[in-house]
């Protein structure tokens, strides 16, 4: 087993045993259950309401886990000095970092899958059937997972050079800014100086485009999602994560640990 996988496996095991994670997932199920109730009193549009609320719960809880656990992945290891013994093994720092990232990504995938199962269970309880058109909800869940993985990469990058609190704020801030990337791009055609237009153009391509992952509306209304968007979002996440993790690895490899 490669060294990255050893660290990833350990990270996953440690995360699975952390009760905080269970509390959050329990909270998500509670929200999905409340979607069930709200869906039942929303005559005619119960599926739309349930999918919207369910996906929002999965996204929100996933974001909380991604930001807080993502920041803690490295900073807690530095603070508690748990990584000193690991780095004394034949393990490079970048391998440790990528392993931690992969471990949390798998944890998020398992959590997201569990919450999505809860959502489908709720849908089945209301409709007593799952239509083929609702498979699009799975795509929406997949996009949420991609978004969470990108958030973890950003959280890890920030935690490599700043305090946990600032890393949380930076990650949260960048996530919010990333939701409005398409608005930034449309700003180019409004009445701005050429310099400002260039600035916003550059910024809009540098910022992570979290707006691309939001297909909740389409999923709730059973509209098809183009295959090209699935491919685009997958490649975008892989490439963006690779760049962010490379930067994190460079910083982490030169960092004096206390």
């Amino acid at each position, binding site marked *: *087993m490669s*060294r990255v996988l*050893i660290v990833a496996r*350990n990270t996953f*095991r*440690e995360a699975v*045993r*952390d009760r905080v994670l269970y509390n959050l997932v329990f909270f998500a199920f509670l929200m999905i259950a409340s979607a069930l109730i709200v869906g039942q009193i929303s005559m005619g549009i119960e599926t739309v309401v349930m999918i919207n609320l369910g996906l929002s719960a999965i996204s929100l809880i996933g974001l909380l886990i991604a930001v807080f656990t993502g920041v803690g992945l490295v900073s807690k290891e530095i603070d*508690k*000095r*748990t990584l*000193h*013994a*690991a*780095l*004394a*093994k*034949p*393990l*490079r720092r970048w391998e440790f970092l990528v392993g931690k990232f992969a471990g949390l990504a798998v944890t998020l995938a398992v959590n997201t899958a569990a919450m999505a199962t809860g959502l489908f269970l709720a849908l089945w309880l209301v409709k007593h059937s799952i239509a083929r058109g609702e498979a699009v909800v799975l795509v929406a869940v997949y996009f949420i997972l991609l978004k969470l993985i990108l958030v973890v990469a950003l959280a890890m990058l920030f935690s490599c050079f700043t305090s946990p609190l600032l890393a949380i704020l930076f990650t949260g801030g960048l996530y919010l800014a990333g939701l409005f990337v398409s608005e930034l791009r449309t700003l180019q055609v409004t009445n701005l100086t050429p310099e400002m237009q260039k600035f916003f153009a550059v910024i809009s391509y540098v910022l992570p485009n979290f707006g691309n992952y939001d297909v909740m509306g389409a999923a709730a209304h059973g509209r098809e999602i183009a295959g090209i968007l699935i491919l685009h979002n997958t490649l975008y996440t892989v490439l963006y994560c690779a760049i962010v993790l490379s930067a994190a690895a460079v910083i982490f490899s*030169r960092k*004096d*640990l206390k």
Partner: protein
Amino acid sequence: MQVEDGEVFGLLGPNGAGKSTTIKLLMGIIFPTAGCARMLGKPVSDVSMHRDIGYLPEQPYFYDYLTATEVLDYFARFHGYSAAERGERVQKMLKKVGLETAGKIQLRKYSKGMLQRVGLAQAILHDPKLVILDEPMSGLDPVGRREVRDVILELKNAGKTILFSTHILPDAETLCDRVGVIAGGKLRGVGAPGAIVGVKATGMEILFELAEGATLPETIRAQVTKSGAGYRVSVGESELYTALEGLRAAGARITSVAQIRPTLEDFFMELVGRDRAQAAAIEVSTQ
């Protein structure tokens, strides 16, 4: 500073002297601003040599929700052992550090001393050529300290090279072939514990018993102190025979005659004292 193959080298110094900093530099946890260090013939930046190095960090801490068995299994995986080999080595190490009955307990329930034992187990799990221990006795009770001392001696007998930092001087005197003393961020001396402080005796100590009513000889009367049921007197080497004759004439029973040598502790305290005096002088001059 050079540590020879197969020796036990103690890095001594007060808190904040730079012992852990030196070890962290060697393990690549922090980076030097100048200079270089090599271990097993390779620069310290080369992590491939970590296959042959075992490291116990100062006050080690591991993953709260994992058991000692799981943590040791995790570290063993980096050395490429098969599942059967890992299981065998982990059990052997748990037994060696006295945790065979606590292997299935999550580490968040462990005391500081138990974590120290897990730290020692992970450091020697892969049978390394060089073992680096940062304050291995810290947090241990007398029994634990004795056990760690035994493990170090066992490693020494197996021909391993051991570098360990400590501020517990008797441990260094008992275990080390050589010691290096760091004070104020500088290496102040390297050598065998006896040689580093100088082998020359600074005097002689006589222990004796005296019958009730007997009179002490005039020449040593002022220096004699009570010691348990008997008396103690310290004299210069040249005055030893005169003192012994005087005591014999007084009817004293001599129970012990021994050389007084400076201990590592004396040397250590002198250095620390000198540093503190210098630091105070610097503070005064900068005011």
